[in-house]
């Protein structure tokens, strides 16, 4: 009996350890990121559009949070301090990068994105002139991150909308085939 209890305890302990069940993350305990923007001129400015639920739980709306730092790590540390919940990138619909980011910083950013396991590889990378303009269009759209690709691909929105105007500034769209697709970065 003692052997059985020992074996069962060992099984549970190993299972817990292997599948890191201590790191349980309920969906509602995280901030779902719909879009993330990087603007690296002098300092790196990270802007995230996260989904929030209104008090009646009838609608999902968005809020944007911005933080800056000298490098990627410090920018994200600063951003995380501003947010009450942990960021959840699995449903991120667009990575928006400032078009005037220099090549060295751009590579760093793209390598970070491609190496981050929680970011979906099918998430397109959009280059634009004005990230602030783009992500400030949330009052026109449920979530800019989810709508921008629709606008770019199908041109569905009215031409007068700010989102359309902001999207028109898009220079290029990049997608990765897999996590080793370093060629796309060149």
């Amino acid at each position: 009996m003692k052997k059985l209890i020992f074996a069962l305890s060992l099984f549970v302990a190993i299972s817990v350890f292997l599948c890191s069940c201590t790191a349980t993350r309920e969906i509602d305990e995280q901030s779902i990121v719909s879009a993330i923007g990087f603007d690296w001129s002098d300092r790196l400015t990270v802007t995230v559009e996260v989904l929030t639920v209104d008090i009646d739980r009838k609608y999902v709306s968005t809020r944007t949070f911005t933080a800056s730092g000298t490098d990627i790590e410090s920018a994200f540390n600063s951003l995380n301090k501003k947010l009450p919940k942990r960021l959840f990138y699995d449903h991120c619909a667009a990575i928006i990068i400032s078009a005037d980011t220099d090549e060295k910083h751009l590579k760093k950013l793209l390598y970070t994105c491609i190496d981050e396991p929680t970011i979906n590889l099918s998430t397109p990378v959009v280059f634009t002139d004005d990230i602030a303009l783009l992500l400030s269009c949330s009052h026109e759209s449920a979530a800019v991150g989810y709508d921008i690709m629709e606008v770019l691909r199908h041109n569905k929105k009215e031409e007068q909308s700010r989102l359309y105007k902001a999207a028109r500034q898009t220079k290029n769209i990049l997608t990765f085939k897999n996590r080793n697709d370093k060629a796309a970065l060149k």
Partner: protein
Amino acid sequence: MENKNISFYKTKNLSGKLSADTETIKEIFKKDGMFRSRKFSVGKTIPAALFFFDGMVDSLSLSESIMKPLCSALIDKRAENENILSLIEQNYIFAGELKKTDNLAEMLEGIMYGDTLLLINGYKEAFVINTKGFKIRSVEEPPNERVALGPREGFCESITVNTSLLRRKLQTPDFCTEMICCGRRTGTRIALCYLSSLADSSLVEEVKKRIAKIDIDGVLDTNYISESIRDKNLGIFKTLGTTERPDVVAARLLEGRVALLCDGSPSAITAPFLFSENFQTDDDYYLNFFVGSLGRVLRILSFFIACFFTGIYVSLVTFHAGLLPTNSALAVFRLRAAAPSSTLTESLLLIMAFEVLKEACSKAPHDTVTALGIVGGLVLGDAAVNSDTISAPTLIIVALSGICSIMLPRIRGPIFFINLLSTVSAGLFGLFGVFSVGIFVTLYILNLTSFGIDYTEMLFSPSFQNIKDVLFRASWKNMIIRPPFNKNKRRQK
């Protein structure tokens, strides 16, 4: 003589003196207020006595078939000893069935089973006369096995009526009914039924051997036997079939199985029993085979939903939210925003609440079940969601699993345990936990046997003839082969 069961009297005989023997029998039943004895004289000259239990015998039959002819019989003491008993047996007892015995245990068994014991002065032998007249429930449709079309009769609590229902369906000399007594203190009669040309003789012998090993005080239902003779005593899956319908038993006997009927129980056991039978219903065979097959596919699907759907939901929301489609993730995110407890806690609470509701509905008086369902399901469910106690997605998922489990009444117990286990594992280990439980359950089912036959026999067979009544129900024209565990495999040309 108190605290002695029937086996104590197996070696005892009567003395042949009526007064002494009467005292012996009265002494045995002295504490039973319903025991009756009646002294009289056969042909006004030979003292005799009748013993029976009030309420167990048919009083009309007692007076018309025994008392009347014996009292008016033309027999006197001068007749030869042997002749008197033979004369009475052949000419003066009008009952359909009687047994002459000198064994006290057989006499007592007869009295306790509604027969009347006739003692005649000067003889150690006595007559046990069939005068059974106790009330039994009429043949009705079993409430748990209703069908849209097909026979509406079900077993009742009398073994004689139940065997007659089978005999009426199987009018062949092939049909065998062997009576076995079981239970130290109840002496319950068990009928072992089979078709001798189809049932494997080794299976019949094995059933008899296992029944002979049963050594318990009483057998009050077939489940007492079922739990005692099954292959694995502690398993959660039933490896013996149970039904209250004679047509189902007849159909299984025609496949070469054996059936056990227990006196006092309206359900029959059939063996061997396969896993695929959990998904079969009587309607499958009484409706068009397309409709029957559709129902069966739905039940198989329901099994997986009932066992693993809650677990998969918990693991997706708790560990793998990235695997949810974005729209679904957003819906869950929105609806769970105000939930006070974790998805695992919510799910476990709802599973338990659903089981309590099911149990309450099954035990509640028939006319309150609808009200209970409305209050328990609609009012409480709606109030729980509106007050943010429970999130709507969890309620929907658990309710769907619960409804699916109702579709499979034979394995409702195992489904509850698997669902509970997979949900807890999902909350602790994510999808890894759910798949681990799935693999464990699959291995467990694969290891089960029913009287030596694999529980999953025919399930993974590539042959159409083997799966024709497993994953779907083929038309009768295509049901050519019987299951592989009987002597005569070919059902039709």
